[in-house]
């Protein structure tokens, strides 16, 4: 599903590489935690997969596409196969919950009929039925993140990327989000999640990929956050 072959990313000529010949393969249906301290390259890893950045070395394959050779006008097609969730939710503040989720379908040209049938279904999956008409600021952080996940997943992409989705949430709320991601993973979706949250990683016991200074230092099934705990 996702394969990096010696992928390297140098942002500024001469700077230390943000990602340093990382090779890793993620299969369809995997649930993978991406851990590492601040600046270790987690977000860069995810950006390469989304083709927000291009590798300066090595190859990246996602959903059967060789991203190094993907032309700019085909990028939107790639993005439709990937859902993305971020720490800061990124909801449109002047649109309701329903409109925020529907927006993702509108802009890729889905019919109104399709939207009207899919969105409520998705809101039910993430547990927000009955709150369709709320505005983002009328929701708790956990609820806002559920809306963001609904928007990322409403198109049923085979891949879901999450960059510290629980970073702004308290431990109780974070657990709820992890349960939701686990449920989505069980439908066969590949989930790749960058996180700092050691408790969650230790509790879920999924595959863990650890980066340090841009290099892959650990790839462990049913792993924990850090080998040496602080």
């Amino acid at each position, binding site marked *: 599903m996702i394969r990096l072959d010696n992928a390297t990313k140098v942002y500024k000529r001469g700077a230390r590489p943000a990602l340093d010949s990382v090779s890793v393969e993620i299969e369809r249906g995997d649930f993978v935690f991406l851990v590492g301290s601040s600046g270790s390259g987690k977000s860069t890893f995810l950006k390469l997969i989304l083709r927000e950045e291009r590798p300066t070395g090595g190859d990246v394959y996602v959903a059967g596409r060789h991203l190094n050779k993907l032309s700019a006008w085909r990028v939107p097609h790639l*993005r439709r196969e990937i859902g993305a969730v971020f720490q800061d939710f990124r909801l449109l503040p002047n649109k309701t919950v329903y409109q925020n989720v529907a927006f993702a379908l509108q802009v890729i040209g889905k019919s109104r009929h399709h939207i009207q049938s899919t969105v409520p279904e998705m809101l039910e999956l993430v547990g927000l039925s009955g709150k369709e008409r709320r505005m983002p600021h009328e929701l708790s952080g956990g609820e806002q993140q559920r809306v963001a996940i609904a928007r990322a997943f409403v198109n049923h992409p085979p891949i879901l990327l999450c960059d510290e989705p629980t970073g702004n949430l308290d431990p109780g709320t974070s657990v709820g989000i992890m349960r939701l991601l686990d449920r989505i993973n069980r439908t066969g979706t590949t989930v790749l999640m960058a996180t700092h949250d050691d408790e969650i990683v230790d509790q879920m016991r999924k595959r863990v990929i650890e980066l340090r200074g841009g290099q892959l230092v650990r790839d462990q099934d049913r792993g924990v956050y850090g080998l040496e705990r602080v």
Partner: protein
Amino acid sequence: MRLRFILGEVVNGLRRNGTMALSVVLVTFVSLMFVGAAALTQMQIDQLKDDWYGKVEISIFLCPENSRNERCAEGAVTPEQEDAIRGVLEDGALAGLVQEVYYESREQAYDKFVANDDEGIWSSLTADQMQPSFRVKLSDPEQYQVVADATEGLPGVDVVRDQREIFSELFRFLNAATVVAAALAAVMLLAAMLLITTTIRLSALSRRKETQIMRMVGSSRSLIQMPFMLEGAVAATGGALLAVAGLFFGVRYLIEDWLRSSVTWVQYIGTQEVWSVAPWLLVIAVGLAAIASLVTLGRYTRA
């Protein structure tokens, strides 16, 4: 669905950057007014040239009696001299340049003069005191100097006059007006382009969140960029329409209503000339917006 979405975004963007969009409209308005005014002035000049140069004649005044002019020291023109002059004009070297020669006798000149003197100030003038003249119509009015040179020295000729001289000063003034209008138009068009660029940038900045989300969910690049381009185009077109309206009413009231009734001896341009300029102004407005979009969008809404 998509069309509604794009139009909604355009309306949204224009409302959100209202003052900015309004500035674009105003500045495009004024700049295209100048472009239009320069074009119309040139059209007016062309029209005047066609009109006047076609009408004007060269007047070859012949010697009267007792003239103070040295050339006429030998007394009034004789019929032989008149024939010789007519010969030069109708045959000889000038034949190709001259379209028509018309002889105005003393009596004819006197009748014309009296007809123009409404108040009778010159009542005591007699036909004898008028000068006979040849009125020459040229086939190419620009060749005035050749004809003047060839006839000026002939015996019996007092002075040669070309009505065109009266107008050349006016044309110089109108040409200067065109240059000033064009210069102002250039400055303002530059300002308009900078403004459209900034509007698009501002719009892109204020909707960073939307475009970021659109990119993330895989919306096509054209759908992302379309609203911004349309916004610039709509504002610029608004300015162009205002400019056309401004020119229309300007020509209507200043030229058709006022000048045409107060200075009647001139053939003026009218509102139909405004209509012939209008499409060009729209083209310039849309072109401006397109260039500004190309310059800006690549950087601010990458896919």
